[in-house]
C-alpha cells in the first residue's frame, strides 16, 4: 500500500472539512432529487409544494411521458444515432491516434495541432453553411449525416485520448511483430488494437454520452418527428404551455436513468476519460 501523508491531524478541522463537503454534496444533489421526487407526483401537488413527499404515487406519469414524448420512436432514433457515432468515431480515431502517437508520418505535428485547433472551434463558425449546404443536398433529418457531424466534432477529443494509450505500448512489441513478417495493417489490427481496447471502450462511453445528450446540432438538423432524438422531443414536450411538470420530470428521468446507471457502474472510466481528454493525457 502506498503511504499517504496526513495533511491535517486536528479533529475540528476534519469536522469542518466534512461539513463543507457535505453542504456541496447537498447543493449538487438538490435539483436532481427534485427531478426524481416530482417525477412520481401529480401536477397539482407539485404546484402546491415541490419539496413535499408524494401523497399519491403517479406511476402513470411515466406511461404518459413515454406516449407524449413518443419515446418508442425518439429513443430508438437516439440509440441509432449514438451507436452510429460511436462506431464512426472509434474506427476513424484509432487509426489517426496510432499514426500520430507513433509519428508514422512527417507531418504528424501539423495534423495534431490542426485537430487540437478544431476542438476549440465554435460550432457557429461552421453551423450555418453546413445547415444550408445539407438542406440543399437533402440531408436534413438524416441520422447518418448528423452522426458524421458528431464524428467531426468529437473525434479530435477521441484522437487525443487514444493517442496516450498508444504511447504507453512499448515499441519492441511492434518491432517484434514486424520481424515476424506482419504487414503494417496486421500490426495495427492484430497487435496494437487489442492492447488499446480499454481506451477504445472509454472513448465509446464518452462519445456515447455526448451524442445521447447533445442538443444544439440535434435540434437544428433533426426537426422531423420521425427523426428527432429523445432529448429534443423532451425539450419540445417541456416547452408546451399547459405544462404537467410531473410528466415532464418523468420524461427527464427516462432519459437520464440509463446514463446514471452506466455512470455509477463505470465511474472511473467516465471521469478519467472526460477529465483526461480536456487536460493532458
Amino acid at each position, binding site marked *: 500500500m502506498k*503511504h*499517504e*501523508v496526513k*495533511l491535517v491531524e486536528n479533529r475540528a478541522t*476534519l469536522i469542518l*472539512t*466534512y461539513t*463543507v*463537503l457535505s453542504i456541496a*454534496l447537498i*447543493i*449538487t444533489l438538490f*435539483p*436532481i432529487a427534485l*427531478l426524481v421526487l416530482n417525477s412520481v407526483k401529480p401536477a397539482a401537488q*407539485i*404546484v402546491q409544494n*415541490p419539496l413535499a413527499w408524494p401523497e399519491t404515487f403517479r406511476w402513470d406519469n411515466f406511461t404518459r411521458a413515454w406516449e407524449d414524448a413518443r419515446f418508442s420512436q425518439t429513443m430508438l432514433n437516439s440509440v441509432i444515432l449514438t451507436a452510429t457515432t460511436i462506431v*464512426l468515431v472509434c474506427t*476513424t480515431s484509432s487509426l*489517426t491516434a496510432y*499514426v500520430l502517437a507513433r509519428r508514422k508520418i512527417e507531418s504528424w*505535428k501539423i495534423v495534431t495541432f490542426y485537430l*487540437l*485547433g*478544431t476542438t*476549440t*472551434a*465554435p*460550432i*457557429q*463558425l*461552421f*453551423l*450555418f*453553411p453546413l*445547415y444550408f449546404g445539407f438542406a440543399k443536398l437533402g440531408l436534413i433529418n438524416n441520422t447518418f449525416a448528423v452522426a*458524421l457531424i458528431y464524428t*467531426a*466534432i468529437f473525434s479530435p477529443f477521441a*484522437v487525443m485520448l487514444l493517442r496516450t494509450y498508444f504511447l504507453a505500448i512499448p515499441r519492441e512489441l511492434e518491432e517484434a511483430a514486424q520481424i515476424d513478417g506482419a504487414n*503494417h495493417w496486421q500490426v*495495427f489490427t492484430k497487435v496494437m488494437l487489442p492492447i488499446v481496447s480499454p481506451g477504445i471502450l472509454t472513448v465509446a462511453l464518452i462519445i456515447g454520452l455526448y451524442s445521447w*445528450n447533445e*442538443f*444544439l446540432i440535434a435540434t*437544428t438538423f433533426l426537426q422531423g418527428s420521425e427523426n428527432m432524438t429523445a*432529448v429534443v422531443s*423532451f425539450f419540445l414536450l417541456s416547452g408546451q404551455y399547459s405544462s404537467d*411538470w410531473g410528466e415532464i*420530470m418523468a420524461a*427527464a428521468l427516462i432519459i*437520464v436513468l440509463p*446514463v*446514471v446507471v452506466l*455512470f*455509477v457502474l463505470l*465511474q472511473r472510466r467516465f*471521469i478519467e476519460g472526460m477529465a483526461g481528454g480536456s*487536460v493532458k493525457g
Partner: protein
Amino acid sequence: MYRLYLVPTLLINVVIIFIPAVLTIALAFFRWDGITTPVFIGLQNFQALWSDRVFWTALTNNLIWTGIFLTIPIFMGLLAATLLLIARRGSMFFQVIYFLPMIIATAILARVWQGMIYSPVSGVNGMLQRMGFPTIDPLSQPSTALLGIATVDLWHWWGFLCVIFFAALRQVPQEQIEFARLEGVSFWKILRYVLIPAIWPTITLMMIMTVIWSFLVFDFVYILTQGGPAFSSEVLSTLAYRSAFYDLAVGKAAAVAVVISLFGLVATAFYIRAQAKEFHQ
C-alpha cells in the same frame, strides 16, 4: 501508406468543419437569406453589428460570463479539491456526486431548474413566494436573467473542475508534502507554497478552456430565456443562431460567428501552446 490511416478523420473533419468555417468567414461579407444568391456587401454586416445595441449587450454578457467562470467555479473547485485531499476517506464518493451533473443532458438540467426551482408557479421559488418571502424568478427580470442562467451552469460545471484539480493534487509528490509537514509548516502554507504551484499548469489550462467555452455558451441561454427578457441575457452564440435561423440574416450570423472566433482564437493559441509542451517528450 500510413497517410491513408488519416484519411477518414481528416476527410470528415475538413468537409464538416474546415470548409464550412471558411465559407462562414466569406459569408460575413455577404448579404444572404440562405436561399437566393448571396450579395457581396463588404463590411456592412460588421458596421451593422457595430451600431446594434443587442450585439453589444451580447458581447458584454459573454465578457461578464467569462469573468464569472474564471473566478467562482475555479475557486469552488480548488477549495473542494483541497478539502477532499484533507478528508481522504470518502473522497471518491464525494467526487462522483460532484461530477454527476456533468453527465446529464443540458436540456434536462435547464428544464429542472426552470420548472422545479425558478418557476413562480411550480418551483421552490413559487412556494417561497406563497409563504411570504420576497423572492423573484431571476429569469424574468432583465437585471438578473444572465445571473440566473450562470447559476445553473455554475452548479453543473464546478464539480468537473473539482475532479480535475483533485486528480492533479494527488499527483504532487508525497515527499514534498511530508517534508513540509515534518518541518512543521502549516496546512495553508503548504497549500500556498507547495500544492498550488505544483498544479498551476492545470489551473492555467482550465482558465484557457474557460475563456474558450465562455464564448461558446449556448444551450442554457437558449433553453432558459432565449436571450430574453428584452435581449438582456443574449450572448453571441444565441444572437448568431437567431439571426441565421429566425431572421434569415445568414451574413449577419456569420459576422457574429467571426467575432466569437476571434475571441476564441486568442485563447486557442494559448491552449495549443500549453498542450504543445506535451509533444516535446
